[in-house]
Structures are given as structure tokens and as C-alpha cells.
């Protein structure tokens, strides 16, 4: 997969057959199916597309790209849209984890798991350890620990 700067030009060959949505493993969770996101792009509703919650549900499994009869690279477009959304500040989602991850890769070229774990643990201070404790209790009650 090549990361494209601009996801828009590729969407116009889509004929809206719906094969991407019917084979999508996560579409049932979303208000928008991948077909709809592409349709928004075709109609020029960029903001609508960029704000779609589907983008962040997409698992990048590429099932849609493989099944597309017009060779539209759906998963790639979803990825491009995520980037767009961040650039244009359309995304309301908490992106701290993505940012930490990206920063680490950019600086060192690899992830230090300990650092990542620590950052993640400290991110929600002071509630985080308490949350974990509650979770521990639940797990213990069901015999998972």
C-alpha cells in the first residue's frame, strides 16, 4: 500500500455497488458504511467524510480493496482521510496514543515498549490505577486471574 497525499481523485471510478460494505467486518458497528464515505467524497462533502466515525473503526483488513470491481483502494482512502481529518482538526477523538506512537517511531525508528506502557499508564493519572484496580476485581471474580 502506497500512502497517497490526496484520497479524492481515486474515488470517481466507484460505481457504488456496495461490495466493500457487504464484506466489511466492522461496518455493522458504524453509522456509515465504507461505500457511504466514498459517496460523500464523490459528492464533495469532504467534511462529512472526514468526520465519519467509520474511519476510526476501519481495521485496514483490505477486504474492500480486494473485492472492489473498479479497483478503488478503499482502505487506503480511509487512511488518507484520517490524516486529512487530523490536519483539518475535524477529529474529535483522543489521539494521544497515536501521537506518542508516531513520535517514538520518528525519533528512534522503533518503539520502546516500556516507555510506551509508562506513557499510557501515566496519561490518565490520577484515575488510571484506580480504574485498573476495579478491573482487577472484576477479572478475579470471574476467575480470569
Amino acid at each position, binding site marked *: 500500500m502506497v500512502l497517497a497525499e490526496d484520497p479524492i481523485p481515486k474515488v470517481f471510478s466507484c*460505481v*457504488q*455497488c*456496495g*461490495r*466493500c*460494505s*457487504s*464484506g*466489511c467486518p466492522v*461496518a*455493522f458497528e458504524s453509522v*456509515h*458504511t465504507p*461505500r*457511504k464515505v466514498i459517496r460523500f467524497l464523490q459528492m464533495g462533502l469532504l467534511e462529512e467524510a472526514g468526520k465519519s466515525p467509520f474511519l476510526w473503526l476501519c481495521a485496514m483488513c483490505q*477486504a474492500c480493496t480486494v*473485492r472492489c*470491481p*473498479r*479497483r478503488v483502494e478503499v482502505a487506503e482512502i480511509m487512511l488518507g482521510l484520517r490524516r486529512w481529518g487530523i490536519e483539518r482538526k475535524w477529529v474529535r477523538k483522543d489521539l494521544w496514543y497515536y501521537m506518542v506512537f508516531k513520535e517514538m517511531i520518528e525519533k528512534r525508528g522503533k518503539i520502546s515498549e516500556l516507555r510506551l506502557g509508562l506513557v499510557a499508564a501515566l496519561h490518565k493519572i490520577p484515575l488510571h490505577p484506580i480504574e485498573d484496580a476495579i478491573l482487577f476485581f472484576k477479572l478475579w471474580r470471574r476467575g480470569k486471574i
Partner: protein
Amino acid sequence: MIPKVIPKVGIFIYDAGGRLSRAIDLAEVVQRLAKAKNVTRREVFNNLEAPDPISSIQEDLRAGRLNRILWVGRFPDARRRRIEGELTAAGLNPYLQEWCDLEEQGIGRGDFDRAVQAQKAIILIQMALARTRLLAPLMPLEIPAVDAALIIGGGVTGLHTAASLADLGKKVFLIEKESGVGGKVAALRRLYPLICDPHCGLEFALQKLEKSGRVEIHTLTRVKTLAGSPGNFSVRVEKQPRYVDEQKCIACGECITACPKEIQAGNTFPLAGDFSNRGQQVWNPNGLEKAIHQARPLAYPSTYVIERQHCPPECRECQKACPTRAVELEQTASELEFKAGAVLIATGWDPYPLTRVEEYGYGVYPNVVTNLEMEHISEEPPDLQEVGFIQCAGSRDERYLNYCSSVCCSITLKQVLHLKEKRPGVRCYIFYQDIRTSGFDEELYQRVKSLDQVIFIRGDPATVKPEENGRLRVRAEDTFSGKELDLHLDLLVLAGGMVPSEGSRELAHLLKLPQNSYGFFEAHLPCHPEESQRTGIRAGGACRGPMNVVHSIESGHRAAFDVLPFLSGTVRLEPTYPVLNLTKCDKCKRCMEECPYASFYFDGNGFPVPDLAKCRQCGNCVGSCPLFAVSLGHFTVQQVASQIQAIKSGFLGKEEPVVLAFLCKNDAYPAAKGAAESGLPIPPNVFFIKVPCAGSINNAFIADALGFGIDGVLIAGCQDDQCHYVKGNQLVKTRKENLAEKLQKMVIEPQRVRFESLEIRDSRRYVDLVTSYIAELKKMGPNPFKT
């Protein structure tokens, strides 16, 4: 050889309504022509009726004072034909007359100097005169031809076309590779729009064939070689053994009872793809039959056939059982030869191998079937509750089949209608992208739409999953509501597409017929739809592209109509065919390679010779020859060269450029003519020569023109891919590149040769093009060879 005759040319200038004399000084023109060689009479007249010039010309012709006529001026087409007829009656060969319309070259158009226009007119007349001197009398050729046609493929197209040709009194040889005729249509159960049985139409055609007695049907036969030329093809075919004597078998069926070997019935019903991995069948489309059985797909001829590869060794049961001693197990393949004037190809189609579309599980799940299998299921449907139909299964998909097969929508609608008639309670889901029911098929769509429990879902499923109870789980998005559907189906029908049949591919390879990127026979669709780029061979029906039964029969008939001239006993050829000057030829084979209709062959000495019956007289060979050894009748190299030589490149002064345009007679010439007719200002700097095709312009003509000091050469052909002679413009483009090198050696800028595409109504563009080209050439400066 034509005996050398001293040309005696009569120039007749027709000043219609004084239009010419208003534009130029005609007296001066005639005076300037006074010294022209070989001219015995020159006259200006402004009335065609009285005093009648024709009768005096006829007299001169009979007396031998004239033998070539040059008509200058604008004649009405009807008048022109009449004059030609009248002079032909007086003994003048029609090819010894030349027509020079000054007005279409731009005389009297636009606001240009009278003296300059007169100069141009004189040059134009001298060009025409130079050509007239070199005209040769030509006679059409007549080649004896066989009045029989060969039809390859005994499907619905082949049978109906054969019946019509037989009606016209032609002998027809029909060859079919299966044991019986009927083709794919015989395997269908219903035809839309009448929902009728297709066997009825096939029987009807067969009865007509029988009655005419002029059709010879050969089954189990394939083409081996095709030799000869249109009008006189000789075809060798190979006939596989039938093992039953056609003269003796009475189709009583006793051998079938005796035969011990049961086999899977084969091609009655074409399956789409390989079935080795298909699970348990809910539906066995063809059933079992014996090794000796009726002819298939249609039991015509009525003689039985044995599939010898299935016979147990040394088994002679059928031979023992046969009451008429028709079984001949020792038969071998034989070869036959036919003489035919023309060949019609009707090799049809095959279903697209749907096993390739893996996501729908055809061939894996027994209740996923094709629309062809559904033909039989809908006839006697088992107990079904929910049936799904997937349209465009594999079609209109860049991964599989990137075109629409045009019939599948109507087929599905027909099957739904038929199924609902038999089982009204069945719930049908139709998954589609677009429903394409063109023309009156829309009625079918509306009828199905009005049915209860038929749900159209706009959206294709991505995958099919099996369920434990044997049903299929299909998930699809209804793209209208955006809702996801999760359906459980008993039967899933895939509407697969049509691809060219195995036989078509085989034949294209054997006869070297051009195919398009999908493997169907290629043609110039708007003008010659049944064209095969080989004269005397035409393709009709579904081997030309996906089409329904009605269109295939039409297409077959149209193809037959195209070859009728080769079936009438004689083939008449216009005398404008190519002639090779073998003393110049160095056997480079360029003409052979560039001929779009493959009409050249080698003679005994290794020289290329055009097969005149195959030739379409486009002149691409004239353009191809590096030694200018090829000439068309009435368009010889000498004639064109003399015309170019007659142009005085300095008549406007050294600074003003002169352009020579070669115009293709199909598109560019009518565009130029239209420009003059609509009174557009055509600059006096341009002269044009009409050519049969842009591909017929030899590089020598261009080099000649530039060598004589003409500043620019404009070649105008058709738009890309629109050439009536397949590839004329591509040829010009490649030749132009080759010429550029030569021009650079002559210290001539390659920009002095220009190729442009003109459409037939591009009159204004033609004028703009010429004007801008002249301006460009002015900037470039005069041709170094200009005097």
C-alpha cells in the same frame, strides 16, 4: 501494356453563371494555357445547353481529334454523371476524364487579389492537365466466382442465415463441431420476451433448410485450412467419425437399450468452468446418458452418435442390437474440401468460467448455480423458499470481465417471471448494480417489478457463506437505505457473462482474423459492424460481441448481405486496384506488412502480388513502398508526381509560403469542400490533392514537394481509430517520423510536414488550420529549395 497514345487533351472551362469570370480573368487564363503541350482544344462556355458543347466533343472524340477531357469548373453532380455517360457512349473511357473544380480549391472565396487568384487557377489547371496527360484507359475486372457460401457454426445465427441464403438460391455449406446443430440456444428453455421455447424457432429454420435442398450440413466438423481468395475460397475441413452411418440409422433407440456404458451427459448444457471440486449436486443439469446417444444439442441430424472414448474395449453391443446395421465402429476421421465464394463466421459464445469468481463459491457449494443452469431449474423447480440472483457476477469488474454482456438482466427477469409462475410463493432477491433492459425489455422489468415477493436490492454481495442446514448466507448492503441485509437463501443464481467461444478463438488463430482486447472479432463498429478485416469473410452473431438471440440473427443476416457480391457467380472489381512495378521492387515486403487486409501474397519468384479480390483499394501499399513501385489505377505515382511538379512554388513571391495539402477522401476532403461551399475564406497559398486514404501518401511525394520548393506539406486524415481502412493515420504518423531524419539531411525543418486529423464537418477548422500553418511557415522563412 497499354499502347502509347499521344494525349490530345481538350480543356473545357465551365463558367457557371459567370461566377468564375467574376473571380478571375478567364481570357487571361485561356491565353496562358495556349502554350500548354498536348492540348488540342480549349474553350470557355457559360451555358451547358446551347450551343451544346457535348455533341461537338463527341464528334471530336469520334474523329480522333480528342482523347482526354479536362473539365474545369463546378458541375452539378447529376450533370456530371450525364456527361460521363454521354462521352462513354462516344467511346471515351470514363477514366480518361478529369474534373478540376476551382471553387472547392478556394477560387472566388474570400477577399483576395484577383491577379493572385488567377495565378492560382492557372496552376490548378496545369496540375490537372499534367494529370490528364498521364491518364490511362481502365476497365473493370470480372473474376469468376463460386456461388456457394460456407457458414462456420450451426447455432441460431448460422441456421437462420443459412436458411435465408438458401432462399436466395445460394448453395450453403454449414459446418458444426458438435454432433448436432442448435448451439447454445438449443440448451436454453425459454426465450424472452415471449417466454417461448427456443427449439420452436430452430425447428422452423431447419425445416426451411430441408425444404430448400441447397444446404449441406456437416456435423462433428472443424475447419483445417482456408486457401484462395474471395469468390474462390477452398476450405479443407476435418470430419470426426460418428461411428454410425448417417444413411442407415433410423434413430429407433435399440442401441441405447443395449449400450452397457453410462456417461455424464456433456455439452447439451454448457457448464461454466471446471467442476472437479463441486460437492454433492442438488441439481444435475445434464443427467446421465449412454455412450451411444442422440445428436446434441439438437437431435438434428437424427443419426445417433457414439462417444467412442467411453466405450468398454471390444464391446460390440450396439452393433449387435442395430436392426439396420448402421453402427460402424471402425470409422475414421475424414477430410473434405469445399469451394465457397465467401465465408461467414458464426462461432458464438461461451459462458464465462464463473469458478474464477471465487467469492461466490460457484463449483464449491452445490446450490450456487449459473443462469444457464437456472434455465432448467426454473422449468421444474424443486421446493424453494428464498432464491437470490446476483447480477453482473464477474461482469463489469476489472478483475474478471470488464464489460456488460447486455443480456443477463433480461434473462434474470425472464427466469424470475417463469419461476414465480411455477412457484408463486418463492421469495426472490435480485442483487444488482444497474438493471439494463434496453428497448422493449423494459416491459419485462415492469412486469417483474409488479410481482409480489420480488425484492430488488441495489448492491452486490461480497461473499457467500454456507450454513449447516445447506442453505447459503449472503450479506449485502442495500445502497439505497444504507442498511445491511443478512439473507439465508436456498438457491443462488449467478448471472455470468458471455465470452467468445473456444471455436472463435481457434478460428481467429487459424484464419488470422483480428480480435479486440476481449477476444471478439474486431470491426469498424459504426460503418462496417460485421467487418472482419478480411475480404469475403464476415463474422456475425455472438462471436462479434455479447448479444441476444434477436440481434445475433440480425447480425448474421447483415454479414450474409455483405458477402452477397462474392456469391453471384462473378466478382466485379473496380479498376482502381494496385499495380506493382516489378522491375523496381526489391522484395522488401513493406506493402505486405502494411496492408490492413492481408491481401498480398508471394508469386513464384518471391515478389509480393496483391490478391485483387481481397483488396479494398485503400492505397496503403502505395504509401508503404520505399521504391514507389506500387500504384493504384487512376492514382499512379507518376500522376501524383506530375501534379506536384506543376505547382509553381514562387508564384506569390519568395516570402509568401505555399502549402500542399493531401486530403483523405473520406473525411478531410469533404471538410475542405464544405469550407468552400460555405464561403469561408480559403487562402490562395494552399493547393490540395485528394487521396484515397492518408496512408496512401508516399514519403516520396512529400520529399518531392519540399524539393520543388513548396514550403509546407499538410496531411489531413481521419481521427484516430476512425480510419475506414483500419490504420491509415497510424501509418502516416510512423512514416512521418521516418521522414524527419531524411528531411534533416536535406536541411529542411521537419516542421514543414504536418499531420492533422479532421472530421467530416470540420470545415472551419480546416480553414483555421491552413491559415495558422501559413502564418507559422512565414515565421519559419522560405523553403531553401524555393526559386
